[in-house]
């Protein structure tokens, strides 16, 4: 187990390193931030001073080396625009995105699994077929369009829900969260739903497929032959088997949700990382872009690790292989 963890850590370091190289070259290719940051009337001397101040006069490899040295000390550079540490900017915005994404994950599990079970157990019933039909919409409707429709109906027409911002927040562990206040929760309903829709559909279909695949198996018939209750057959025997793929996919989707939050955050003016990164890309604020992408990669690595650990809890066959 410890050697396995160690191996994973070394792998993670290499992935991060490779990522920084790609990102560094990438941001260099998209454009020159000086054009955007400096007013067009600025003279040559002013321009040269700004370039030097941002360290853009150095060759790329030297910029990269400086960045790496800084990164080792937890310094990912300063934002060109805000003149603040990039990491601090991201850390300020991260809780908003995290709570939105995790709420969306929770919704997809709490709504997707029961509906998927129902559709799997009663595939030819009207309700089962309706669930499957509607779930296709969850996949195919574009996120921004659904977001706008939600705002139209629930904010503009009915006036039930607020449509912009985080609302009231409360502090926990030194961080401001919306989910702790009723007003904050009300603000979260629409963006979280918007973000969750695709995933609810995904979890639902995955659950249904798992049920359809597992029900004809001998172990289900044998469990029934033992005379245990139908609910135990479904919730203990079948569910535990289909949780394995569900946990994998949901885990990987958390990363995707955080990345996709960009669209939802823009539509609902949710002050999260997604909005920050969009703004930063617009002004080519390189340190923030690099720091953001590094955080996302780190997040993916951590999530994958957690998924792998959960996997060993769920599937005894994996557990044994790890011991050997």
């Amino acid at each position, binding site marked *: 187990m410890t050697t396995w963890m160690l191996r994973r850590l070394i792998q993670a370091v290499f992935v991060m390193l490779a990522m920084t190289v790609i990102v560094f070259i990438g941001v260099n290719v998209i454009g020159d931030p000086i054009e955007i940051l400096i007013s067009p009337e600025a003279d040559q001397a002013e321009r040269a001073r700004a370039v030097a101040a941002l360290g853009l006069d150095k060759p790329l490899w030297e910029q990269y080396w400086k960045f790496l040295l800084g990164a080792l000390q937890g310094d990912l550079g300063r934002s060109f625009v805000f003149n603040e540490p990039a990491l601090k900017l991201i850390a300020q915005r991260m809780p908003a995105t995290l709570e939105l994404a995790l709420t969306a994950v929770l919704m997809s599990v709490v709504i997707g699994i029961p509906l998927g079970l129902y559709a799997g157990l009663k595939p030819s019933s009207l309700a089962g077929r309706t669930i499957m039909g509607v779930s296709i919409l969850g996949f195919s409707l574009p996120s921004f369009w659904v977001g706008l429709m939600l705002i139209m109906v629930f904010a503009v027409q009915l006036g039930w829900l607020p449509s912009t911002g985080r609302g009231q927040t409360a502090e926990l562990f030194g961080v401001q969260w919306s989910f702790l206040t009723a007003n904050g929760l009300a603000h979260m309903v629409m963006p979280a739903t918007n973000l969750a829709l695709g995933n609810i559909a995904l979890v639902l279909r995955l659950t249904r497929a798992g049920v359809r695949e597992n029900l*004809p*198996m*001998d*172990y289900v*018939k*044998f*469990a*029934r*032959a*033992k*005379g*245990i*209750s*139908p609910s*135990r057959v479904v919730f*203990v*025997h079948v569910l*535990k*088997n289909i949780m*394995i793929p569900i946990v994998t996919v949901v885990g990987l989707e958390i990363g995707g949700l955080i990345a996709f939050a960009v669209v939802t955050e823009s539509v609902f003016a949710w002050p999260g990382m997604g909005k920050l990164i969009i703004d930063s890309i617009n002004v080519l604020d390189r340190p923030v872009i690099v720091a953001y992408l590094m955080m996302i990669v780190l997040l993916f690595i951590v999530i994958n690790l957690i998924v792998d650990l959960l996997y060993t809890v*769920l*599937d*005894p*066959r994996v557990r*044994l292989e790890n011991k050997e």
Partner: protein
Amino acid sequence: MSELTLDVQGLSTHFFTRAGVVKAVDDISFSVARGRVLGLVGESGSGKSVTGFSLIGLVDPPGRITTGKILFQGRDLTKLDERELRDLRGNRIAMIFQDPMMTLNPVLRIDTQMIETVMAHDNVSREVARQRSRDALGMVGIPSPEERLTSYPHQFSGGMRKRVAIAIALLHRPDLIIADEPTTALDVTIQAQILAEVQRLAREVGTALIWITHDLSVIAGLADDIAVMYAGRIVETGAVEEVLDRPLHPYTHGLIGSVPSRNARGSRLRQIPGMTPSLLNLPVGCAFRSRCPRADAACAADPPDSFPVEGRTLRCFHPQLEMVA
């Protein structure tokens, strides 16, 4: 005949598939008395497993029981609702499935799968249920049962899994056990131990047993009665010595001829020529007629049940009356 544990009358189980109707079990009748062992034999695909599943009401769509009665201790199981059937399953009627690799749930521990069976029917504490599970594992010859309880199925060999399945069937000392090829894949000593255990149960508790197998030699040593199945029908029944010594149906005759021990050493095993017909849209008439040396024009009709000798049934127009060579 109040001693009959099971009395099956005219049972048919058909699968209504897109390609047509598969008459997997077609109008079969047989009975098993208390404490007796019935051997159900027949080639692959003859409907033995479907018969077993029909008895415990676990035939899944597109299959269903179309006609017949299954009298278990006088109650007709085909008339019971799911709840009543569930009270019987695993409790008064247990089934040991054919494929040991797939019958246990791969992600649940053995103790979980055994304890839930005990607690589904008896109002006992977890601790008691656990002890009973451990004892049952010991009974089927699993070494150090206490430790093995916390194992997962994949940590057992195929034979060991089969034994776990047998142990689960024994948990409630049922009145009827349907054992589908229970001892294939087990070595001879374990097989003997399990046979002894089952016979003890039959003697002490009066458990009736249906033993499904290809292997006539197991039947010869264990069963009291035999039912020979061919293409969804029972073609011959009777006491085991009588049927084996004096088979009347040409198919039974062929089966006995193909058992290795019956042949003189060095001589070729006599196989029944031809193959089991597809049960899909089976035409009327005796299903064995394309392979039967005695077939004639009469065999194009369905042979009715006949009772040639006291205690025996037969479905054949031209039974074979001479002795087995």
